[in-house]
């Protein structure tokens, strides 16, 4: 019997009750998807009859883990998917949010699967995908521009997310992530401390408020073999904030490591910014963006430091926590030093834009 058989059976029993309008529902396949750092993620295949017609569908089942890379609110993430789904920003269709831990041991959500896609960054350097970099990159930063242009009230996210003051959103984000570093560091962090002091000097006001994805980067969207982006994933850190936050995060050198000239392994940073500007209609404020670039590295470092702590002290011992914690902390520290040291040789990151 597969180790996943008990979960398969439990999901099947749950769905038979939940989707009682379907007949003969069976879960005929279940696979755990690697890399789910904040949720246990499974791909499941179901067969059923609907109105007498046979059907087979794929779903993505995401369950809270006992311990997570990012402490997030599953309901907020699910509502965000629901808000974004009808727009021009492609996301998987959200189907179920189950917050009762009694159903399947821990709360979970389910979405429709977008089949036939990849997420991996290393693909962009392969002969099959390298010619598609411009196409994928253009979509990636156009989608982000469109997200930045959307009105938070029309999108509906202001009904369930806190909308900070435009003057205050940079400081709020900094306070939160600096707090994570303070709480979770197992050893003093002089590079983080220097960067946080730098950031505290001049947090910029936002030119507008928008829905910030919070982890918008290569690796977090699905693309098919034609180079079409079919879905933006992992909205667990979504919040209302400054559109420059996602743009800076998407351009962090970490996401194309060790290639420092192509943002996210796709396009030169200045080209990405140009595409974003055209799609968003927003201004590119270089001073404010410089702040958000350094913030992106501090937020990353906070997540990696937190992962290190979680692996050391938590119960799951998931390798992804150590991978993120040990390897990414090292790289992110090198990026920050590279960017802020007065006599930097910029070996790991291009100078701040």
């Amino acid at each position, binding site marked *: 019997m597969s180790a996943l058989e008990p979960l398969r059976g439990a999901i099947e029993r749950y769905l038979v009750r939940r989707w009682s309008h379907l007949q003969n529902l069976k879960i005929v396949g279940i*696979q755990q998807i690697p890399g789910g750092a904040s949720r246990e993620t499974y791909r499941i295949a179901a067969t059923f009859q609907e109105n007498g017609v046979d059907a087979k569908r794929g779903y993505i089942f995401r369950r809270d883990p006992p311990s997570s890379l990012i402490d997030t609110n599953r309901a907020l993430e699910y509502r965000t998917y629901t808000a974004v789904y009808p727009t021009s920003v492609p996301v998987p269709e959200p189907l179920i949010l189950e917050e009762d831990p009694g159903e399947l041991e821990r709360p979970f959500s389910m979405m429709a699967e977008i089949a036939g896609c990849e997420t991996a960054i290393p693909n962009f350097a392969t002969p099959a995908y390298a010619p598609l970099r411009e196409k994928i990159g253009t979509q990636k930063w156009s989608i982000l521009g469109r997200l930045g242009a959307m009105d938070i009230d029309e999108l509906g996210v202001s009904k369930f997310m806190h909308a900070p003051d435009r003057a205050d959103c940079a400081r709020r984000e900094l306070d939160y992530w600096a707090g994570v570093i303070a709480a979770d560091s197992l050893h003093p962090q*002089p590079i983080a401390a220097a960067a946080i002091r730098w950031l505290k000097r001049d947090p910029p006001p936002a030119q507008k408020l928008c829905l910030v994805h919070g982890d918008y980067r290569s690796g977090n969207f699905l693309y098919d073999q034609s180079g079409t982006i079919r879905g933006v994933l992992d909205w667990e850190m979504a919040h209302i904030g400054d559109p420059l936050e996602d743009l800076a995060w998407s351009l962090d050198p970490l996401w194309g490591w060790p290639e420092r000239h192509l943002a996210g392994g796709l396009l030169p940073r200045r080209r990405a910014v140009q595409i974003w500007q055209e799609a968003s209609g927003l201004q590119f404020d270089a001073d404010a963006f410089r702040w958000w670039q350094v913030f992106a590295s501090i937020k990353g470092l906070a997540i990696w430091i937190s992962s290190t702590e979680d692996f050391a002290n938590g119960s799951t011992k998931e390798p992804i926590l150590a991978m993120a914690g040990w390897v990414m902390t090292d790289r992110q520290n090198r990026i920050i030093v590279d960017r802020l040291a007065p006599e930097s040789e910029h070996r790991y990151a291009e100078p701040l834009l």
Partner: protein
Amino acid sequence: MIPRPQQALADLAMKLATSVAPDTQSAYAASNAGMIAMLMQCLAQDFDRAAAVRTQDIDELVALFESLRDVPPESLANRIATFLRGSAESLRIEHLNARHASAMELLIELHAWAETVEADELDQEIWNFLIRHADRHAYHLPV
């Protein structure tokens, strides 16, 4: 820096034995096995250099604290003096970590003070140390 590497190796070995080995047919298990292999490379690098890189950091900070031309506030200066009179209890990583942490805490405070009083030369020296520190703690992994 990896905390408690010996414990981490034990934890990873347990993971390999209990959750990867029984089911290496799945993509998830294969991914875990790949990550564990990379982590073991990190651990191997740290195992080899752990004492050396910590000692290098500590020695460089001792030199930096001893050569301070700008005089920090009395409380910080006293704690630096106390640190300079001390030493690691032994070469065990646990003891080097404790000495290293003390040095890093003082460095953070000194750096903040240098920025406040615009002691640019000291600020530059500290950044140069941080560049060397980040380099010597880097993991060299296959892309």
